[in-house]
């Protein structure tokens, strides 16, 4: 099963910090509206891969196409204006209020559109409305994730890249977050989610597994379940 119209195509992407290379020849593709999980243990290079896609870490070599357009030479903010959203592990600016964070999420929209979109988010997440004047850093872990998701959705990106959304959440809140993400499925936004928690596979149709900076597996979630070595590595803990 191959995505029909890719929003993201990555070929032979490598990256390093200083002299230490941490990513080798990663090739992947995300279709429009598709949900893909990037599995990998601590230090596998997930965050580095996501940051390289966004332009936060420079690529050593390789190409990145966003909606068929090369973005290798573009700055982070330019890639984000092209329909990308990045939800880091932190996901928001702790020193700004909830509302100010949402404004930043729609930074490049016109005032009127930003206004309506923020109002929509408050409807979707009433907690955020109640706490709109609070510093984002004072929210609970679960509310922070909602803010991070809402902030990413405001610009209606074609691709949301999320880095370990489960980090810092209790198992119960992870379930809640997964439920929220599933509800958001309207087919117009693709998700690329880096995770260690295999529960997120429930959300996805396809998965990649990253190990030591190289892709170890590419395929559907069903194929991943069928793979014996990976099953012991990732599902043995279940």
């Amino acid at each position, binding site marked *: 099963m191959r995505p029909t119209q890719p929003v993201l195509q990555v070929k032979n992407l490598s990256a390093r910090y200083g002299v230490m290379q941490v990513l080798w020849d990663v090739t992947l593709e995300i279709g429009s509206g598709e949900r893909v999980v990037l599995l990998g243990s601590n230090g596998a290079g997930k965050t580095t891969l996501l940051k390289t896609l966004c332009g936060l870490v420079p690529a050593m070599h390789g190409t990145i196409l966003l909606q068929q357009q090369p973005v290798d030479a573009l700055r982070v903010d330019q890639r984000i204006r092209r329909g990308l959203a990045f939800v880091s592990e932190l996901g928001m600016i702790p020193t700004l209020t909830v509302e100010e964070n949402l404004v*930043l999420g729609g930074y490049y929209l016109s005032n009127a559109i930003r206004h309506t979109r923020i109002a929509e988010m408050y409807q979707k997440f009433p907690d955020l409305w109640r706490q709109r004047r609070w510093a984002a850093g004072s929210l609970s872990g679960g509310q922070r994730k909602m803010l991070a998701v809402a902030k990413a959705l405001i610009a209606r990106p074609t691709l949301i890249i999320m880095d370990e959304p489960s980090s810092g959440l209790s198992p119960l809140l992870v379930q809640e977050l997964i439920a929220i993400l599933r509800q958001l499925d309207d087919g117009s936004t693709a998700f690329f989610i880096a995770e260690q928690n295999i529960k997120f596979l429930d959300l996805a149709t396809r998965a990649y597994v990253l190990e030591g900076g190289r892709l170890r597996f590419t395929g559907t979630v069903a194929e991943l379940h069928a793979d014996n070595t990976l099953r012991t590595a990732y599902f043995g803990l279940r």
Partner: protein
Amino acid sequence: MQTFRVEGRLLRILFYAIISGMLFGLFFALMSLGLNLLFGVMRMVNLAHGDFVMVGAFIAYVAYTHGILSPWLGLALVIVILGGLGFVLYFPIGPRLTGSYDPEMLSLILFFGVSQILEALAVMVFGNNPVAVGYHVLTVKPVNLLGQAYQPSWILAAGVSVIVILAVYGYLYHTRLGYATRAIMGDREESESTGINVHRVSAIVFALGLVTAGLAGVLSPLVIGSIYPTMGLGLTITAFAVVIIGSLGNPLGSILGGLIYGISLMLMETYLSTWSTMVPYVLLLLILLLRPTGLLGKGVRRA
């Protein structure tokens, strides 16, 4: 009866010291605001801060020598000249500094050089001697309030300072660009992840920092008298004291620091005038010993 009258007089003097200290302090809040903005957003330690105040003062002086007896033209010129200069100057130096291993130390050295250059240039153009900027308001009769006379020039300087400070606050807390600016102060990398063009915002803040310094320079003849090319160093030290009292990296702290500095200075001038030049240093030491993060600090300096 006699003691009553004496106490009344002492109270009036105290009142005078506090009010004039506040007027004075608002000017110093403006004078140091840019130093704080640059540190907060870019972790830049601008040792040339006082020299940009000096540049503003001499811009006003040039306007004055062309027969302009009010500060308004100087204020406008500073916005254009230092604003433009700041925005352009940011790009060759800012990204290099903020991307470096130790921006604080590197910027300290770099701006020390800038300070020397600005001083030398000013000496070349204007000579070594202090010059006066005879704004018309300096000749206006003092204003009476509860039996004490206040200099209209101080009131004007404080008034303009308040307006500029409020404008900077409006920018920081009520505009999208201001949110972005505060986001960078809070978490630079996360701001980039969010899609803020960090260098463009930084360039704007850099320009704003130089402009606020320059505006204080235009007002300085109203508050601190004659101006001279080497006035920058003392002002840089005072600005550091004000900013550290409030807390480094927090622009709100500049206001608090300015007021505390101004009022302490005036109290010293009133009761122990020979000691008053030591005020910034004593305050600086006290704060560093008692509360190193500044009065509003939340460990900004840890970075």
